[in-house]
């Protein structure tokens, strides 16, 4: 057990290390002076440039050899210093990213988990009957094949502008400031529905298809045959198949986390939802590299964390994993 966990921790640390190193390396491989790139944002106040250039150069140690720059970068990271935003000057990247993170998390985590639960449930349901399967399967395919932004736009247009059911911009009404009241929470949820639904439905299709395929395999497995041979009703056979099909789906969940980020970015842009995705998109257009990197790091950190969590949770969910660990 210990060995397994420490091995996992080592792998994740290594992955994180690689990620932050990539993050550091890419801007330095690009032609041109990264600091000057940043400074060009400050054009409106020309007088600031020389000073800021010197300051940033020193801060990021651009005058030092590459290796010391790298060490400095790592040191800054350990202190939570992700750098200085340019388009959101004078906010630090850490401040911007940490403000945006809760919005992204409250949007994507429920979307992923609920689509996982519902998708698996519906997929298992569809695997039950040929008729049902043949009628809903094309629907799942179309759902997963839909680009997030296309669905977002259609939802915004139909449920937002045409039917006037849901607001289409922001995380809560512009007529409010956050407060700990029920009406604020309701308002927040009301704004949350459409962006949530865009991610939810696209994901849903994928889960349902995955579950359907897995169940079909599981229903053909020896243990299912044996149950049938012992005269167990279909209900029990399916329940067991579902139980086992869920496990690879959970591994899929870990992988999906990374993919959902795409959906989150475009969806947040469409709905002006003030999460990491929106910040990232803005930073990209504004070439604010420090913010891009900060957001990237945050996303990587979240995905790694979730993966780690799932890996550990697996020990408790799947006796096979637990058993193989004892064998270790």
């Amino acid at each position, binding site marked *: 057990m210990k060995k397994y966990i420490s091995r996992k921790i080592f792998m994740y640390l290594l992955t994180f290390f690689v990620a932050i190193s990539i993050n550091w390396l890419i801007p330095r491989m690009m032609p*041109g002076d990264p600091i*000057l*790139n940043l400074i*060009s944002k*400050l*054009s*409106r*106040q*020309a*007088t*600031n*440039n020389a000073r800021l250039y010197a300051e940033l150069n020193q801060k990021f140690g651009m005058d030092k050899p590459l290796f010391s720059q790298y060490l400095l970068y790592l040191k800054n990271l350990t202190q939570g210093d992700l750098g200085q*935003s340019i*388009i*959101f*000057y*004078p*906010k630090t990247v850490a401040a*911007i990213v940490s403000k*945006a993170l809760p*919005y992204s998390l409250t949007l994507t985590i429920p979307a992923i988990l*609920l689509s996982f*639960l*519902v998708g698996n*449930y519906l997929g298992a349901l569809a695997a039950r009957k040929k008729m049902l399967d043949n009628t809903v399967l094309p629907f799942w395919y179309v759902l997963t094949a839909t680009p997030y932004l296309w669905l977002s*736009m259609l939802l*915004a*247009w139909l449920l*937002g*502008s045409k039917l*006037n*059911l*849901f*607001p*289409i*911009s*922001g*995380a809560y*009404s*512009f*007529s*409010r*400031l*956050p*407060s700990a009241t029920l*009406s604020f929470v*309701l*308002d927040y*949820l*009301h704004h949350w*529905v459409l962006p949530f639904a865009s991610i939810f439905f696209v994901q849903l299709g994928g889960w349902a298809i995955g579950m359907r395929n897995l169940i079909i395999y599981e229903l053909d497995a020896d243990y299912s045959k044996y149950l049938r041979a012992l005269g167990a009703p279909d209900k029990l056979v399916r329940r067991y198949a579902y139980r086992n099909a869920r496990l690879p789906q959970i591994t899929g969940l870990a992988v999906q986390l990374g993919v959902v980020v795409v959906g989150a970015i475009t969806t947040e842009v*469409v*709905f*002006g939802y*003030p999460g990491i995705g929106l*910040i990232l998109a*803005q930073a990209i*257009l*504004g*070439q604010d590299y420090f913010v891009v990197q900060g957001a990237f790091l945050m996303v990587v950190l979240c995905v790694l964390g979730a993966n780690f969590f799932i890996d550990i949770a697996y020990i408790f969910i799947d006796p096979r994993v637990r058993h193989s660990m004892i064998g270790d």
Partner: protein
Amino acid sequence: MQRSKRFILLALAALLLTLPLAATAEKETDFGRKDTVYVTGGMWSIPTSFNPITWSVPAGLRGLTYESLLTYDALSDQLKPWLAKSAVWQADGKTLRVTLNPGTTWSDGSPLTAEDVAFTFTYGAWSNPFAGYLETANVIDDRTCDLVFSDPAYHSINLNLYIWPIIPQKIWSQIPAEEATDFEPSLEQSIGSGPYVIEGYDQDRVVYQRDDDWWGIKGLERSFPAKRVVYIKSMANNVAMAMLSQGRELDMANNYVSGLPAFTANNPALHTYYKGAPYNLPDNIVFLMPNHTKKPFNDTAFRRALAFAINTDDIVEIAYENMIVKPENSLGLLPHPGWAAYNNDDIAKNLGYSFNQDEASRLLDAAGYRDTDGDGLREYPDGSALSFKVSVPYGWTDWMDALRIITDNFREVGLDARPDFPDEGRYQNEMVKGEFDMLLNNWGAYRSSSPFSLYQFLFSTYTPVGEDEWTGNFGRYDNETLRNLVQEFNRIPMDKTQESNAIVRQIQTVHMQDMPYIPLWINGMWFVANTNTWTNWPGEVGSTNQNYPSLWTDKLQIGGLWMLSEIKLK
């Protein structure tokens, strides 16, 4: 296990069902709908620092919370009193006497005095528009302050009188001047003198709340009907349009909204300054800037030929769907009363250009740019291949569309021109370093009290390649005479129009003859309002609110503030 899952599903379904119901029911909101005006446009990034003297100031802060001495009526070209009752040049021509209105106070109740004015204009060097040529600021009494200039640049000073915010000495004197732009005042430290104070903010909004003890209620006999102004960060084009048509949480947008003519036609609640084309007032001029350090742009004949090749009508009609005015002539001036005295039509007629591709071809032929290898594209006189690109930042969709028209026009006269859409960062980088071929820009060509701002933008500087140019002569057009003329223009007092026009005529003559930068089209002051809650928005007809309809940063001082005080509840 099974049961809990079913419960989750049920709960989810219930949630999804009840939310729309909750929405259709009369919604309890924190801000009364009739107390609040929701605006967007002009706030492009998340609110970061509430420091009024940085460039990244959230829109509305200068104007609503911090006030300038004067305001400028950009429709009628008049300076109007605001904090100051008057700002008058003394007989020596070097002393500007500022007299404050009676009863000016800060939002904490303490008086705003001439001391604060003197402090503002002598504080630091970074953050001070008069740094370098303000000699002293003498406080005469509580209400009066003399600003003494060593070398009065009348037009620049005039501009800043209605732009620059007066800051409270008691707060800022604690901040070392060199740290002024890094200072992030807390909400408690955000003490302004204006009609609104910051109530709160988030990633996508700033909420300003009316200060009912504002000095101007008595001092200016002016009040603001909306208890709150909610500034919403610029949103996606389609979201802005949807929210505008709903009018629920958006009353006015200063955004370029694609498809607006078709959209307003079906939405009677939507209001624009002009009922039909051009819908918007003119605000700034977009120039085509060739890089004079590169062939063939260092050839005057070539540049003039380009000017004749461009169909500016197409830009207006197609790229902008007739949402902007067509320029009267080729001088590149705004049709604006403040600039009217300098609209020397005769120069435009004699020396200017108009869309005429035959003329463009003739000029190119005459200058030796001919198609010698028969590929339909012109070569250099020496026969070598000629091609160039024209840059516009990626994502500026209206400009990208306009640029496609321009490069098509160039191809029509046989020039191998390609549109180039770099990211904004690279666009700016190439621009300030002078590494582009051609680009489109409008930074300093905005509506102001004097066309000096335009000529300062275009012709006041020269930076050799290798150094960064930040003012506006990005193409490195080197003409010392012109630079001196612009400085001379600045030194002529505002009211001596005839004298200054003599100089401007010289500038315009050189501009039209040499065509260093080609004026293309006049961008609009994008403005759409929904009249369901608030009415009497500025409009050509049927509105008593005759103010420049803009809430962009530093445009509240030229009309936006006045507009907000004159809208009415329906």
